[in-house]
């Protein structure tokens, strides 16, 4: 396997998303190639930075009026037509009982 072919698989290798054959080939190449190992470490550090990203703060538009943030300021036109001016929290999504 060439350096170029190996590097294209490094992200998937980090995520353990390669099949056994690909994984063995990548690991064999990494064992012999310090440059690809450096590339791997750079990718690993990048993924590590991404893992530190905080979730976005909540939107005013999809909070309920009872949480002190006021009314929704974003209601899609279709929702408006249907009289659904309520924020998302008031939609009966819990009723389905689906979840993790």
């Amino acid at each position: 396997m060439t350096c170029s072919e190996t590097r294209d698989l490094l992200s998937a290798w980090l995520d353990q998303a390669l099949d056994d054959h690909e994984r063995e080939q990548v690991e064999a190449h990494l064992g012999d190639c310090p440059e690809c190992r450096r590339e791997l470490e750079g990718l690993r550090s990048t993924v590590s930075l991404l893992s530190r990203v905080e979730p976005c703060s909540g939107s005013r538009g999809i909070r309920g009026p009872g949480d002190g943030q006021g009314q929704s300021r974003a209601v899609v036109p279709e929702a408006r037509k249907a009289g659904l001016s309520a924020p998302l929290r008031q939609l009966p999504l819990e009723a389905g009982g689906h979840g993790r």
Partner: protein
Amino acid sequence: VATHQHRVFGVALRMLGSAAEAEEAAQEAFLRAHRSLPEFRGEAKLSTWLYAIVSRLCLNRLAMGDRRAVRHGEEILLRVADPHGGPDTGAERGEMEAALHRAIAELDEDRRVVVILRDLEGLSYEEIASALGIELGTVRSRLHRARKDLKGKMERFLP
């Protein structure tokens, strides 16, 4: 559901770069989900299903090209960089986070959505492929290119 609301809004915000547009997209995603709930068979997690709906909505909006002009990334920076803002948050960390948010915002949208779903939201490759209706190999290559782009832009923050 409250948890999903924030996550769905977060995906939309990172994709669209505008809080107002993200709110509209999130609202629309939940309305669509509500309408389609009888068709939801529980084969996927509810969260994955919602990510699929909002991701496709955002990609459609971006593809339509008639969006309000957004100076991409700037509004995101105001909302998500340094979310705690306390005295313990170092300037260097704040700078790094701002650069990272900017780098994510600058990715091509096809790569951006994949890196958001994988590295920020934790979906598996299979879940992303299903959510976006693309092949597993496409997820793999887009994610790799996105990470390579980010690595290039974040070089000075890497060890």
